[in-house]
């Protein structure tokens, strides 16, 4: 077969390769040879550029419908495209809530209209109607319309009996439940860790056990029901220890963490910095080390951004009034690849957490550069430098503590189904 696209001399796992693509799929990946030449519609010289499979982000908030002033599908997917993400899973906390086929289809249509070749939105349906935690949502209808998982997002179901039934009902449809683990009474949504900093600032604060208590609930339920549950945005050592205990016993539980829990500590809140207000909150240095270790060992399976855009005026207010959330689609690739450079993660840990792990948890297609894989990959200039700021971020919202930071590395081309979408 004559390839339609050949990407030449890209660096994949330390070796120079040529990638041959036809019909939106990988034909072959060959070691680069100087004397080799190809006949193809399009040949791309990728010398000096790293080759990555497109990343999967299993936890984002794209705000459409309802909060388009923060983000919409077009702008959120723009950030995804230039941030290296080929598939993102938007949460259901839109307005209206994504608890009907109509809303799911609207999300998919808007995404396709803006980015016909991808990145793909893979919606997460509401677990309960209106995320109210009272009645099961119409999960079969949502699954049919295109939802790939269910979650009550930031409003964890208090009623454990209802949660158990929701997990059972979802698994009947072959889909998993993603649980935001947070005790509903221990300073929910405080956005700051209960610790030295909150004590000094006098802010109501959430202790790490508020998360770990619900992680323990989910582990015991998953074990009892023998149905997998996925834990969203794990932030602390206590949760990691529980997950390690569970995995050792073969409990079907998976978990994700976010770049900010690998990079930042509660100290960032000092001075009432609302850009560091996030739920679960930034924890301590010890927790950061535990999260890094958990990614290396696989106790935490996946990385996700929990990209949570908010308008500038919403964050420029009293700390206690500001909404929780940090954007991540624009910066996650660079900020976590930097951890590989520092030896904190291996390149394999990085690739597993951003591609194969989330793809296998949620049964999504992913490129491993085997023949027949979707030709979803990007080229990355590891030396390019850029400063995080309003001009460089493609998300509508700029609420990241990385504002002003210099990042290393830039996506120069992003092929989805063999088509460069940048």
């Amino acid at each position, binding site marked *: 077969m004559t390839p339609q696209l050949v990407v030449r001399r890209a660096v994949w796992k330390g070796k120079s390769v040529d990638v041959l693509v036809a019909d939106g799929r990988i034909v072959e990946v060959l070691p680069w040879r100087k004397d080799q030449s190809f006949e193809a519609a399009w040949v791309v010289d990728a010398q000096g550029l790293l080759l990555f499979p497109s990343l999967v982000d299993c936890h984002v908030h794209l705000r459409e419908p309802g909060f388009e002033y923060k983000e919409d599908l077009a702008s959120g997917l723009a950030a995804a495209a230039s941030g290296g993400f080929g598939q993102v899973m938007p949460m259901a906390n839109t307005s209206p809530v994504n608890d009907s086929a109509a809303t799911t289809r609207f999300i998919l249509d808007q995404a396709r209209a803006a980015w016909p070749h991808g990145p793909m939105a893979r919606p997460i349906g509401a677990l309960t109607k209106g995320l109210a935690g009272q009645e099961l949502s119409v999960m079969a209808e949502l699954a049919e319309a295109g939802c790939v998982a269910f979650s009550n997002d930031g409003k964890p179901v208090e009623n454990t009996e209802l949660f158990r039934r929701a997990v059972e009902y979802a698994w009947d449809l072959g889909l998993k439940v993603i649980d935001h683990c947070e005790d509903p009474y221990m300073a929910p949504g405080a956005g700051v860790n*209960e*610790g*030295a900093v*909150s*004590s*000094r*600032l*006098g*802010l109501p*604060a959430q*202790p790490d056990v508020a998360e770990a208590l619900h992680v323990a609930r989910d582990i015991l339920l998953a074990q009892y029901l023998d149905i997998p549950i996925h834990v969203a945005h794990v932030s602390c050592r206590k949760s990691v220890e529980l997950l390690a205990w569970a995995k050792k016993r073969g409990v079907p539980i998976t978990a994700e963490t976010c770049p900010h829990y690998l990079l930042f500590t509660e100290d960032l809140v000092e*001075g*009432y910095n609302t850009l560091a207000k996030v739920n679960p909150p930034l924890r301590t240095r010890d927790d950061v080390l535990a999260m890094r270790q958990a990614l290396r060992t696989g106790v935490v399976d996946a990385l996700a951004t929990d990209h949570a855009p908010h308008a500038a*005026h919403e964050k*420029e*207010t*009293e*700390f*206690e*009034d500001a909404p929780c959330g940090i954007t991540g689609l624009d910066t996650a690739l660079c900020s976590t690849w930097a951890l590989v450079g520092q030896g904190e993660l291996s390149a394999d840990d990085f690739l597993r957490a951003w591609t194969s792990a989330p793809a296998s948890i949620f049964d999504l297609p992913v490129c491993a550069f085997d023949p027949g894989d979707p030709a979803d990959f990007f080229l990355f200039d590891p030396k390019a430098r850029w400063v995080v700021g309003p001009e460089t971020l493609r998300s509508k919202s700029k609420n990241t503590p990385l504002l002003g930071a210099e990042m290393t590395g830039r996506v120069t081309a992003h092929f989805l189904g063999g088509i460069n979408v940048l």
Partner: protein
Amino acid sequence: MQWPHKDLLDVDQLSTEQVAHIFDAATHFQEINSRPVKKVPTLKGKSVVLFFAEASTRTKTSFDMAGKRLSADTFSLAKSGSSLVKGETLKDTALTLQAMSPDAIVIRHWAGGAAQFLAERLDCSIINAGDGRHAHPTQALLDAFTLYQEWAGMDFKGKRVLILGDIAHSRVARSNVKLLTMLGARVRLCGPRTLLPPRVEDWPVRVFSDLSEAVRGVNAIMCLRLQLERQQAGLLPDLREYSRRFCLSERHLELAAKNARVMHPGPMNRGAEISSSLADAPQSVILDQVANGVAVRMALLFMYMTRQSPV
């Protein structure tokens, strides 16, 4: 002498020498407060906005009186009854105030960090009159000034001060711990565990759960106001049980050092955190605190608005 600070956000911005300057200035202004005509033209033509987004009577009155005695024009802006504040973001309120070119804004706000929020955005001086549970520097300064007068000087070293009650929710306690520690006093805290801040072990204090032990040998006791909503929040069973364990009374004073002083930032709940008779006893310096509050705030308004020290 030049005064280097634009804003007073918390006491940890100040050095010991600067605190001593404030006390010298307050002593100077105290003399004015004892004159038959309690007014000097020092800040004539200057304007001070009293922006109180949270209810307060005594702090606001104290600042108002301090400003007026220095001949500054004071303008009140309260949360209720003001369309300027209603439904408006703090940023917009701040910018609106700025546009009116005041020389200083005294801010009381329910949110921690509100004073800093204004200070970062406005050119005029910002005086923090209490932000959330975070800081209340003028209260701490008037408390320390009261002790400074009682103890006849800056020698706080070796003195023991007990702060009693709801520490967790108290900006007064937070600023007082910082200031008293900086001046060399040793601070103790006493209250039920539910009303102590998280990670209190990191604070430079000794913590007691038993009041009789806590008062032993202390030179001053600051009682804090107990908010009744702590009961609804599940932090204490009821007022009766609280007062049995933590209400300061004469019998506790017997265990304290000789001449120990009793303080309260007000408003008091007599019988809850302090016995009624003790509040009126000679050991009580509660009304001195109020009088000193005006003098300290005159000193602060002068120093922050003119960037000069008066003495």
